[in-house]
């Protein structure tokens, strides 16, 4: 049901195709902030960060947790490649909470470990926020 308002959106991981739909509006968690996408957007290739993906279709809204990956928008087809995509009800609140504790306990000695800690913190926090 492709109308003049919608564009195709698919989310794939190495293990499965998570979502395949005609959407009206998508918000991507890009590496440097959120990007909103509507039909007719210019070709885009961007790196994704850890965060929330929101996909609006004509009659519903999908929310997914993304852990990095890439997004490509081309000819009104948005493809999101990610190594981990989960719906909020698939998230494990307790595991995320303990991950957050672990991430807090990480010691920072150099730039690499700082980045690792920030990533772990963000991953855990985003999961916690979405699990609620």
């Amino acid at each position, binding site marked *: 049901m492709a109308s003049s308002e919608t564009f195709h959106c*698919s989310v*794939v*991981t*190495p*293990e*499965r*195709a998570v979502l395949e739909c005609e959407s009206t509006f998508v918000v991507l968690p*890009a*590496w*440097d902030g959120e990007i909103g996408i509507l039909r007719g957007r*210019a*070709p*885009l*290739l*961007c*790196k994704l960060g850890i965060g929330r993906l929101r996909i609006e279709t004509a009659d519903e809204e999908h929310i997914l947790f993304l852990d990095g990956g*890439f997004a*490509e928008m*081309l000819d009104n087809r948005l*493809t999101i*490649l990610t*190594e*981990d995509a989960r719906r909020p009800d698939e998230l494990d609140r307790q595991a995320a909470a303990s991950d957050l504790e672990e991430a807090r306990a990480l010691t920072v000695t150099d730039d690499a470990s700082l980045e690792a800690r920030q990533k772990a913190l963000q991953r855990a926090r985003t999961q916690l926020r979405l699990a609620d």
Partner: protein
Amino acid sequence: MANRRVLIKRRDAVRNIHKITRTMQMIANVRFQAAFKRAVASKPYTEKLAKLVDDLARAAKGIDHPLMRQPEEGGVSVLMVITSTRGLCGGYNHNVLRTAGEHLKSLEAGGERVELQMVGKKGVAYLKFAGWPMDREITDIGETPRFDEIEPLANEMMERFTRGEIRSVDVVYMKFVSTGKQIPVVERLLPLTGLESENAEVAPAVAEVQYEFSPDPHELLNELLPATVRIALFQAFSDAVVSEQVSRMVAMTAATEAAEDIIKRLTQQYNRARQTAITMELLDIVGGANALS
């Protein structure tokens, strides 16, 4: 007669085996379908990723990445061999191990130090029996390899590769071509090769798309290449599982058919023995009656 009882016993034994192999064949069939579905499910990701690398390589005007450089000196060559956790799958493990052995010899003949990483209980058991030392045994990856199980392995290899500890990574596994064909292959995981040669051929045919890149193409590539390595390793594991189930299906079908043949032959032998016994008895009776008259 004793002979007949023995035949019946043997036939019952074969019938039991027949039941077991038939069940295993059916289980392997179901598992194959599940594994095949999973392997197919990862196709869109792999294909899209390859296309992105292609587009980016063109936009970035050539690629130069630590993962693609062949280290000059030093370092070990990692050989990862993927075998199964369970047996009764025909020549599956044997074929993989033979290919691995040949490759190992050719590496060592080239004067390289080889680090052998064995995946799967069967391969580990075989090498232990052969008295061959392994540098690492990985037996905790089950029949449904998940991406988050494979990812750390790939990440670890890439890290060691960039540090210069290892000079190459080869994976030996059974590639799934079709249900009728699986071939043991040696695949080079690191350093990455064959990216540039491919896109040189495709380049003129495809119209160039003016993408908006975020961040710039070089940095995107830096992120994409490790993802390609991870998915390549994941694919190897998924393929291995699919091939294993096919091999088991084929082996168990053959075993079931063989059991049916034996049951048929034993039934024939039993019937013949029974008929012989009856004839003998009749002859006895007739002989006795004749003797009386």
